[in-house]
């Protein structure tokens, strides 16, 4: 069974495909095989911990084959992460029906479509996939971007706690925007002003300062050419109509205002200090 992270969804232990077996044998003999995958660790964890995988010899081939036989997830496929909370956890700010459709339908479709788009291609972590997503073509751009963006979205939110940013992140927000309130004003204005479908982001620029910018459709600032502001996103707001229409209809500003209540600033603070501040994207 896969490791118990929210990114390792329990996989159907359907018969090991001959193809998977063949790929492991071929892969183990000729290519660097991430040994973590053979051990059944999820793709996301594997990519985070992947350093330099050793060249694999004959013993490695055997290990690969054994790994394939023992615990093989669908090779090279992304999976839909579970929501870290129940559908109704963000009520009344984001309604349960929206969470259900948004996660179970929209996000699930991005996952299915990015897997389709990447069939047969070399394996990359979802984070790694973002950089060249635009040049990789519309399938990867829209669905690979969509998968990453929504993975971040679920994790950065949580039941309303009344807590705002603290520590280093709070300082950086004050530095960049003057105050937390002024940050919310600017973020809200930009999110409301993104015409059509897209996202509004808080990110960390190469010089370490924070910035707000928006992107169209499923583009994100990790993509080369994805965002006018070069930055690592640590917080994103989905302003596609599907994100708010059931409850707010055309009233996007009301949705934006409500959404601030469910941002988990402790999590976002970690995204900042563990990743953004180091110039690294948050891995999913």
């Amino acid at each position, binding site marked *: 069974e896969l490791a118990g992270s929210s990114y390792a969804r329990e996989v159907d232990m359907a018969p090991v495909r001959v193809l998977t077996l063949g790929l492991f044998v071929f892969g183990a003999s000729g290519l660097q095989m991430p040994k973590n995958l053979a051990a059944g660790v999820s793709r996301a964890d594997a990519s985070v911990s992947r350093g330099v995988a050793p060249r694999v010899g004959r013993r490695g081939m055997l290990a690969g084959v054994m790994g394939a036989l023992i615990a093989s997830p669908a090779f090279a496929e992304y999976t839909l992460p579970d929501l870290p909370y129940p559908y109704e956890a963000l009520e009344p700010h984001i309604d349960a029906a929206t969470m259900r*459709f948004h996660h179970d*339908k*929209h996000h699930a*479709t991005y996952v299915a479509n990015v897997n389709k788009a990447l069939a047969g291609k070399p394996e990359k972590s979802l984070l790694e996939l973002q950089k060249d997503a635009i040049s990789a073509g*519309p399938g990867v751009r*829209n669905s690979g971007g969509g998968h990453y963006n929504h993975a971040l979205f679920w994790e950065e939110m949580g039941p309303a706690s009344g807590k705002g940013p603290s520590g280093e992140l709070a300082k950086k927000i004050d530095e960049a925007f003057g105050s937390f309130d002024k940050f919310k004003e600017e973020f809200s204005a930009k999110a409301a002003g993104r*015409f*059509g*479908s*897209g996202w509004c982001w808080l990110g960390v620029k190469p010089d370490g300062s924070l910035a707000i910018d928006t992107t*169209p*459709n*499923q583009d994100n600032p990790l993509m080369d050419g994805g965002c006018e502001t070069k930055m690592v996103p640590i917080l994103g707001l989905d302003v*596609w*109509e*599907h994100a708010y*229409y*059931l409850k707010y*209809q*055309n009233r996007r500003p009301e949705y934006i205002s409500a959404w601030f209540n469910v941002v988990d600033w402790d999590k976002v603070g970690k995204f900042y200090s563990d990743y953004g501040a180091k110039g690294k994207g948050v891995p999913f």
Partner: protein
Amino acid sequence: AFASAFARPLDRSLPSTVMLARVRAVPTLRGVCTRAKHTLPDLPFEANALEPAISAEIMTIHHSKHHNTYVTNLNAALEKYADAEAKGDMAAMIALQGAIKFNGGGHVNHSIFWTNLAPTTCGGGDMSTAPSVQKAIEKQWGSVDTFKTTFNATTAAVQGSGWGWLGYCKASDSLKIATCANQDPLSTTGLVPLLGVDVWEHAYYLQYKNVRPDYLKAIWGVVNWRNVEERFAKAK
């Protein structure tokens, strides 16, 4: 006086009324009419008239909120533009062009859209009211079914927000299927709009959720082919 001079009465005797935005001239402080305000055209049918293809709830919100907002914001942008132009503020004029494109496009597109739809009791979905269009479609795509399938596949594939269009190309005297992003009007492609289908999520979400293809299948039942025929004749 200015208002009545410019107001166009709604002619409900024609089943398909080409609803042009009623433009009312507004006198300014200078005593001269320099700016016309755009207005929201009425829906040519009741909000529930397109059910079950499109729900009354969607029609009401789509028309009285979304389209209305485009009209309001268009007027605001044009007013600012006129002021900037009067001051010779080129930077401001350029900065406003995005808002004029979004909201002007939104107004144009939705004004066409309401005329492109009709209840089944008024010919909605009845292609016998569009003999020339039907002939041209069959010539172009082999059959009406193939045309609809192609149109739906192309339009369903629009990423994010946008429109699917059946347009007329003057240069080649032919029909074309085209898509536009956001509220970019079809005029940006050089085609004359005959039939548009809004695939912004607000056009179908309350009823169809993420299943855009189901909305596209259903909408053919309320297409006002008579209006498409009129537009085609005019375009030629």
